[in-house]
């Protein structure tokens, strides 16, 4: 410690010892109480059935049967215990460990699920279907958020993910129909996404136009163009231009029969497999290769990169373009996997959710992937719960993904730090 030779003589008014923020312990405590009271004591008395394996699976696992009220009380007490632990840590002046809010969230969501299912007209859902469906819905989000990661890591904010998804979706449908091959459609979608991205790159990097504005304008532009072509070209000539057919599901023998994990990992279309590969490749590339080191340097401190002989603007241009191609593939999933035709604005704001996912995932490909899965889960829950008939109005269910987004981006899971030069154009000198 340093010396203080002229220590203050007057009585010192010591500040209270530093405490970490109350935010986490407090919110966990409140949520736990809500869960205990509403899901537990006031919970429904039906028993919720959660099926783990489907009828056709090679390995049959019995379904989970959870009585609504008792399950709610037990889960509520478990949540309270976790909240109490967090509060205890806070009184000791320590922060809650990172796993705690995550574990809490998982149990809370499970309790919520039990409550909703047990209160439904038909109190049974398939967990396997729920998870597999979440992954399917998350695929475009994952591609979109990977695109965002690539762009922001290199210092360009990509608000145009929505436009890239939409451009990819439209081009995939059009080209797949005209060539008769969804695979060619997939490649064309990548090209379309890259083209949208190049516009963003040229305007924001070369002409230094505000990146947010270019991105927003591009979204509107792509929506307008695809909407126009859809109306004039696809609607009157559906057979010729808008019947792309689907990408085949390619199950991997044996592995795809594993309960829950099988359908998620080993029963996907080529786009699904590509997603897993892309997450791994982007992560490895960013953090383990020369390319990644340079990309991150450009996004954090472009001037430093420049003084070491790295071409900042070229690096940015090609990364943004690559990001666009990836988002384009994500767009193709809408028209080649989920539904087999294009409709106006089919991406429906998923690009913005992808943007939220990349922030929630802290600009890390794996984080963005996990965040996208969470949003995918929210989307899927909404539709499944609609089917089984819950007491909760469907409008509220439709709000779910966006609520999750707001909480996630508001920094519920700690502060995240964006790349320092993200959004700032680089001008030499």
């Amino acid at each position: 410690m340093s010396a203080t030779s002229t220590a203050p003589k007057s009585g010192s008014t010591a500040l209270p010892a530093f405490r970490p923020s109350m935010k986490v312990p407090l919110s966990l405590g409140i949520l736990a109480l809500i869960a205990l009271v509403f899901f537990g004591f006031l919970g429904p008395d039906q028993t919720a059935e959660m099926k783990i394996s489907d009828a056709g699976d090679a390995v049959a696992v019995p379904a989970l049967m959870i009585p609504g009220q008792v399950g709610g009380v037990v889960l509520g007490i478990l949540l309270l215990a976790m909240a109490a632990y967090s509060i205890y840590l806070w009184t000791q002046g320590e922060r809650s460990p990172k796993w705690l809010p995550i574990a809490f969230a998982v149990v809370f969501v499970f309790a919520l699920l039990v409550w909703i299912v047990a209160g439904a007209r038909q109190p049974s859902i398939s967990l396997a279907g729920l998870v597999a469906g979440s992954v399917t819905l998350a695929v475009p989000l994952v591609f979109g958020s990977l695109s965002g990661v690539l762009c922001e890591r290199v210092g360009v904010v990509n608000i145009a993910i929505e436009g890239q998804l939409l451009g990819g979706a439209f081009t995939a449908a059009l080209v797949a129909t005209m060539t008769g091959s969804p695979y060619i459609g997939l490649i064309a979608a990548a090209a379309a996404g890259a083209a949208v991205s190049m516009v963003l790159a040229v305007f924001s990097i070369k002409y230094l136009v505000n990146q947010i504005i270019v991105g927003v304008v591009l979204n509107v532009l792509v929506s307008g163009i695809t909407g126009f072509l859809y109306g004039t070209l696809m609607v009157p000539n559906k057979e010729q231009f808008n019947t792309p057919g689907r990408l085949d599901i390619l199950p991997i023998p044996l592995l795809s029969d594993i309960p829950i994990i099988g359908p998620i990992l080993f029963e996907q279309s080529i786009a699904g497999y590509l997603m897993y590969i892309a997450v791994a490749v982007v992560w490895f590339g960013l953090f383990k290769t020369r390319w990644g080191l340079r990309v991150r340097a450009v996004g954090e401190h472009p001037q430093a990169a420049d003084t070491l002989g790295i071409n900042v603007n070229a690096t940015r241009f090609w990364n943004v373009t690559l990001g666009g191609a990836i988002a384009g593939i994500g767009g193709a999933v809408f028209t080649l996997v989920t539904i087999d035709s294009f409709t106006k604005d089919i991406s429906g704001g998923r690009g913005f959710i992808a943007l939220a996912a990349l922030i929630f995932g802290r600009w890390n490909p794996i984080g963005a992937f996990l965040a996208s899965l969470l949003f995918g889960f929210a989307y899927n829950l909404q539709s499944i719960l609609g089917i089984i008939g819950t007491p909760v109005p469907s409008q509220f269910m439709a709000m779910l993904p966006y609520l999750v987004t707001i909480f996630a981006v508001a920094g519920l899971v700690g502060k995240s730090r964006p790349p320092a030069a993200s959004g700032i154009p680089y001008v030499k000198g």
Partner: protein
Amino acid sequence: MGVVKLELKGISKAFGTFYANQDIDLVVESGQIHCLLGENGAGKSTLMNVLYGLYEPTAGQILVDDKPVTFRGPGDAMAAGIGMVHQHFMLVPVFTVAENVALGAEPTSFGGVLSIEETRKKIREISKKYGFDVDPDALVEDLPVGVQQRVEIIKALVREAKVLILDEPTAVLTPQETDELLDIMRQLRAGGTSIVFISHKLREVKAVSDVITVIRRGKVVGDAPPTASATELASMMVGRPVSLSLNKAPAQPKETTFVVENLTVRAANGTNVVDGISFDIAQGEILAVAGVQGNGQTELTEAILGVQEHVTGSVTLDGKQLLGLPVKDVLRSGVGFVPEDRTVDGLVGPFSVAENLVLDLYDQAPFASGIGMKPAKVTENAKAKIEEFDIRTPSAGSAAGTLSGGNQQKVVMARELSRPLRLFIASQPTRGVDVGSIEFLHKRIVAERDVGTPVMIVSTELDEVIELADRIAVLYKGKLVGIVPAGTPRDTLGLMMAGVGPEGGSDD
């Protein structure tokens, strides 16, 4: 590998119609420390950026070992054996030392996969050779500036630089760190590396240079031997005779009217950035606060002004408590405040000089009546101040942001000194200001003392502190190391700036 001789022939660099460098000739012999001396804005950094390939020269030639070369970018310069340590470090804060050193010249295995281990080994080797004590796995943002600078030097050495350009390397260092850097430079020279040392600090230049080239307004004024006197060198820099000493009369302190007691400022992360500081200033006395940048000076002055949160303790002026008052009331109590960064806090760049001169009085007579402003009075005031403070501006209506640093600072100083003051606080009053203006600004500060105002100067330039102070307070990590009288030896002050008490030992 042989050593490199570097020659610049007739280098000019124009930005629009403005010539930052004009027809500059410079020969850096191998194994020498060649100093470029000049004021801020003289064109030293521009010249080095040309040499390093960051700028393309408008005219002229660069010769390496008598062969003309063209640098299309820093990559070319590095390949020719030129390395540069920039004034503002070119390090990625969230990268490790090894990642920063590797960047741009990454050792890779198959397929571009990084093999950072090689870089770490090299860093350890160089570290050992020069006694750098740098951990290759430390995050750069966690390192003190002195160590960050060594990382920059390692970056150049790993690339086998034969000519090392150091751009104002001592600006961010304590006196002790500066001495260490000068030693490192001598060691490098002994190892055959030539060094181009850019500085405006005469003492360092004289201590370490083999040859001194003086640059003024983008042109070479001439060469000087390191034996030239400081006054000679300063006169060459400014272009007219300057007196380096202020020759101020001894202070005649009267009543103590400004008292700070146990002032503490807590930062968002829970640490005390200002920690229990107590001092007082008498009327007609200058207290200079010394310390390396970032040891709580900013927070201290801002706490007094009332723009910091989480402040405890007591600040009284003429017996009145200032803590807790709105900034406007603090200013109305007679506090004049020159903030440390004039471009951010001191001026509104796009506003005219005249408007900037009344930023604190615009709502009062004679500049306003009711809800209306009186532009004629504002202009009249501006003309008087421009005259009085010798502000070099095309007109009172010119945007303040277009003036040179020295003249911008004069605008801020003129505004703050235009009210009757009970306390005058100036942070970094002459940072980035030319030698001629420094002389003027210092005289104004002393004049304010002599009319009987308590004056508090915060400066990271030890020369300035010694020049102005009647008493010197030294800050280290938010704590007051001690208050010592003017005339305390530099070495003692230097040690205090590193946290060692004035009695010669750490006493806790």
